């Protein structure tokens, strides 16, 4: 359960203050599937980074499962990221020198999971995204869609409650992009809260709920059908 109250994030660039996010109030229940949309510079990524505890708000409150996380220190934020949040990026961010299986094992290594358990969980996570036969391949031996599926396996292997996807299809062709959305939706059906930042209305409209940001404020929040077709 995500609960945002007047969440605000300002940056200082030179002597100017950029108001990336202004008093955003949102509630996202467990198991929700929402698309965060809006034009460039509308604050989508900032919101995602705040939700993912990679960034801290300037003011306002962010309660995750009833616990205020906006004021946690670095170590505690890392713990939240490790246990509750899975990230998926536009550019995959796989470690190029590691095999698919080793990439999936990384979050477990950081969390101190035992080697034997790591191997079986990584294998299961790769199986869940249909990549069991590519476990020993390095990223440069995989297609874009396959890389993103490794990234999804990595994001879900710690059994997080929230999956945050930043333009997950932005670097893929349409067919691969569709496959990725299918995989993400499957994860959502299994109970994960899924938040997708996207430019692509087609991706956005597949979500149950669309949150549209304009100039750092929530301009619209409702079911996908009512989000207004054709706007990007």
């Amino acid at each position, binding site marked *: 359960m995500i609960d945002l109250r007047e969440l605000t994030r300002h940056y200082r660039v030179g002597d100017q203050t950029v108001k990336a996010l202004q008093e955003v109030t949102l509630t996202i229940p467990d198991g929700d599937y929402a698309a965060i949309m809006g034009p460039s510079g509308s604050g989508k990524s900032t919101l995602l*980074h705040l939700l*993912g505890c*990679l*960034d801290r708000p300037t003011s306002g409150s962010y309660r995750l499962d009833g616990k205020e996380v906006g004021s946690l220190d*670095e*170590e505690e934020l*890392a*713990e939240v*990221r*490790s*246990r509750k949040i899975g*990230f998926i*990026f536009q*550019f995959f*961010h796989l*470690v*190029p*020198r*590691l095999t698919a299986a080793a990439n999936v094992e*990384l*979050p477990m*290594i*950081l*969390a*101190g999971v035992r080697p034997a358990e790591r191997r079986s969980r990584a294998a299961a996570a790769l199986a869940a995204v249909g990549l069991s036969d590519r476990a020993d391949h390095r990223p440069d031996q995989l297609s874009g869609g396959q890389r993103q599926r490794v990234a999804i396996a*990595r*994001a879900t292997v*710690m059994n997080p409650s929230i999956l945050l996807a930043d333009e997950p299809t932005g670097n893929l062709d349409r067919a691969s992009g569709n496959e990725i959305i299918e995989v993400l939706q499957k994860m959502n059906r299994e109970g994960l809260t899924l938040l997708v930042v996207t430019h692509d209305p087609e991706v956005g409209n597949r979500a149950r709920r669309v949150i549209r940001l304009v100039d750092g404020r929530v301009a619209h929040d409702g079911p996908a059908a009512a989000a207004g077709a054709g706007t990007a």
Partner: protein
Amino acid sequence: MTLLERIKFALQAMRGHRLRSILTLLGFGIGVAAVVLLTALGEGARAYVTNEFMSLGSNLLIILPGKTETTGNAPIIGGTPNDLTLSDMEAVRRHVARIRDIAPLSVGTAQVGYGDRRRQVTVFGTTASYLNVRHMAVTLGEFLPEIDPDRQAPVAVIGQTILRELFPSENPLGRSIRLGDWRFRVIGVLEPKGSQLGMNMDEIVFVPVASSLKIFNQSSLFRLMIEVGAHSELEDVRKEVLRILSERHGGEEDVTILTQDSVITAFNRILAALTLSLAGIAAVSLSVAGIGIMNVMLVSVSERTSEIGLLKAIGATPRDIQRVFLVEAILLSLTGGLVGLLAGYAGAAVLGQAFPALPAHPPLWAVAAALLVSFGAGIGFGVLPARRAARLDPVTALARH
């Protein structure tokens, strides 16, 4: 994240940029090898010199006329000390019980000639005891006769070089040689001894001490050499000898007594300083190599910025990141240190083969120091890049790809 996993992760990263890693640890290895090799050389020189002095005999006291150091009761007028004479020697021999043997030495240079061959030589005037005190032996004939030190005798014992040059094909025994204006009969030839303390023992003519004092018109001996029975008695004997001689010289301590120990200690101190300064020079190259490690780690951090961002996104704490990079720096420096140690040992072995007289063994402390310094340099030069990595803002780091 356990230490083992950090090491594994760092090794994978080093394999990722293999050439760069190899060059870095090579640079560091050269620094360590330089430390090991130069200290080995310094230690070799020290061992060599110590050995030279040891061959003199460690139970030896050497007495010089005159005081070589100024102390509180130095005479105000005139620095001329009393002569060191043969009767001084007799007094010491009679009164100091623990003396095993005592030999006088007077030194001069003269021209030695036989037939039409001539040569400038050093003449040692001494007694039969000299042979025991200096642990020498004759190969032909015999050494100076056991006569009263006060008695002159026209007999001489010659070294190997003089034998070769004056008597290339003759038996020298019984031949009469000229020494300045005097004539001496050759009664013995010394075994080859080579150089000792810069003095070639093969180029010396030995004559009875009374004859030598007469030839060179000297009143004082050059040295008195005393051999004691055991090394532990050296100090007691030294004090006793000093007491007897100052009594005889009107209460003045006008002799200097050297022991092998004091000479060796002095040289040891000098050469240890030399070794240390060589190590210091080598340490410069080591620190340059350390900066190389820092440079490579900084490059590595900026190259792997997005990876650092990712690691943070999947739950790495700043401390995790710092340790991963620190371990990588330590692995680089430690591997470099080991490579350098091997190279240093190999170099010392080659040196040992090339110059067998110089025992070039890297001292153990230098080896320990090299490894310790490697480890320390890994931490020292790795901590800045590692901190930089740990402090990276994950959002900015992830934006780079």
